């Protein structure tokens, strides 16, 4: 490897910051990694997205391994919806190859703006608590029939087993298609689209929805990463270095986040994101 120490240091640092932010804010790192690589390191957009998509595989795997073990991730629902995310991801990754840098930057800037608005909105309400879902109440302990996709998990915070059925799979499928498409196109996880839909419309409790989405993200990213790889856009030294940083960062972030007010951080960050969005818009010529 010919990476200079200077390069190595800044890439590791950037990766760690992205990992910490992702863990604290509860959204994947990809959405920050791509702007950082493009604006600070002058990496071409397609290569930045390729780097990001591989790092998404790594973070998703790291988180999913504990979630699957705890039974939080609903594997049957996840695998069903993955059909949609993978289709979306592959078409997104293929589309990215057809788009000019400017167009990709423009799409990215708009999505970043949406994420900033979502963060601001999330910070203004009492999050972390599962939003009660009157339409699809959580079922009593261990009911007989959870349906084809329903599941149950033990919630230590509530000290009981939580069982749920999955309602309306079609909207979940559509959301997964869109999330997968954005994932393949922009190198982001797409959880910010899937989680609200799986939770609010499919009626899956928040913790299970987040865990399931997280599990799906890695599988989805593998599909599009292979397409970026085929185009030669995955750069080894860059990707490996950034991933090491992101993994270390997410670990630190997950420890720190337990002592921080998530709402405050989200509010601060929504504001901090604005100049980044501005820079992306400037670069994209909007």
């Amino acid at each position, binding site marked *: 490897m*010919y*990476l*200079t120490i200077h*390069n190595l240091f800044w890439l590791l640092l950037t990766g760690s910051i992205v990992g910490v932010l992702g863990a604290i804010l509860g959204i994947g790192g990809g959405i920050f990694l791509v702007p950082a690589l493009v604006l600070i*390191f*002058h*990496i*071409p*957009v*397609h*290569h930045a997205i390729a780097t990001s998509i*591989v*790092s998404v*595989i*790594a973070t998703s*795997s*790291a988180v*999913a*391994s504990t979630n*699957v*073990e705890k*039974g939080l*991730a609903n*594997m*049957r629902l996840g*695998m069903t919806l993955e059909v949609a995310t993978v289709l979306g991801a592959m078409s997104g990754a293929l589309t990215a*190859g*057809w*788009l*000019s*840098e*400017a*167009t*990709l*930057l*423009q799409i990215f800037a708009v999505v970043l703006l949406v994420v900033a608005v979502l963060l601001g909105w999330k910070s203004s309400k009492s999050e972390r608590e599962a939003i009660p879902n009157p339409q699809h109440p959580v079922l009593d302990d261990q009911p007989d029939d959870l349906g*084809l996709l329903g599941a149950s998990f033990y919630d230590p915070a509530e000290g009981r087993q939580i069982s749920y059925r999955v309602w309306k799979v079609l909207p979940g499928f559509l959301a997964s298609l869109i999330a997968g498409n954005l994932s393949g196109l922009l190198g982001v996880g797409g959880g910010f689209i899937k989680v609200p839909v799986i939770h609010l419309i499919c009626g899956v409790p928040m913790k299970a929805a987040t865990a399931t989405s997280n*599990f799906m993200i*890695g*599988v989805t990213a*593998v599909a599009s*990463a*292979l397409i970026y*790889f*085929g*185009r*030669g*856009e*995955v*750069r*080894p*030294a*860059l*990707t*490996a270095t950034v*991933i090491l940083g992101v993994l270390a960062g997410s670990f630190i972030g997950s420890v720190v986040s337990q002592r921080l007010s998530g709402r405050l951080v989200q509010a601060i960050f929504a504001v901090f994101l604005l100049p980044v969005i501005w820079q992306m818009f*400037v*670069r*994209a*010529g909007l």
Partner: protein
Amino acid sequence: MTLCEVVDDIIKHMAGRCVIFMSLASLVLAGCGGVAVTPMDTPVPTWPPTEIEPTSSPTRMPVPLPSPLEQRSSSSADRTDSLIYQDPADVDNSDLPITAIEELHTTGKPVELDITTYRLTVEGLVENPLSLSYEEILAYPSVTEVVLLICPHVFYDNAEWTGVPVADILRQAKVKPEAEKVYFKASGGYRQSLTIEEALSDGVFLAYEVNGQPLPQEHGYPLRLVARGKYGSRWVKWLTHIEVISGDSL
């Protein structure tokens, strides 16, 4: 045990392996990236495959790699391999070989421009806004210089570029004293800026030829910015607008 439970069991058992597979896949992808694209002078495979010349295939990855010994044997190979990790401002390119025109790299999809209606406009904080046709640009006194382009982590090209110094154009447009930055904007929206001092310096010019031939479309035809000492992201291709601004306005 119902069928659902059996399926559930299988899935749960597979889950751990699935995760391990994904971690491995990410590492293998990062690792294979190196095998696939290391000799830096081989062109990066493009998508869709139809764009690739018939002699090459998109799955060429493992084929004719030099052995590690061969790779390490010459220090100049080491030097060129490490160029992609360096800042072009720190590199002396005087003893680097010239990259052949068909081996020049590019990223993203090219933008098409109609040369009959093409105009380069110079506006903003200038007393004499300009709108130049391709012929008018060719009529300016030209400079020819070998300039190194580094696209960090991806590739480098050391080519001989010919074009019009940005300083000449800005001098004719009469930049106002409050000017601080110059934006270079491509057809399609891509935009980059240089400070006014950088824009006026030597080695910053609007290229219409590379290695003595007209600029190919994928490299920015009709006009691309060449900026010595700046990363490739600043070398705006398909240039259509130059806008002079003060620091606090867009």
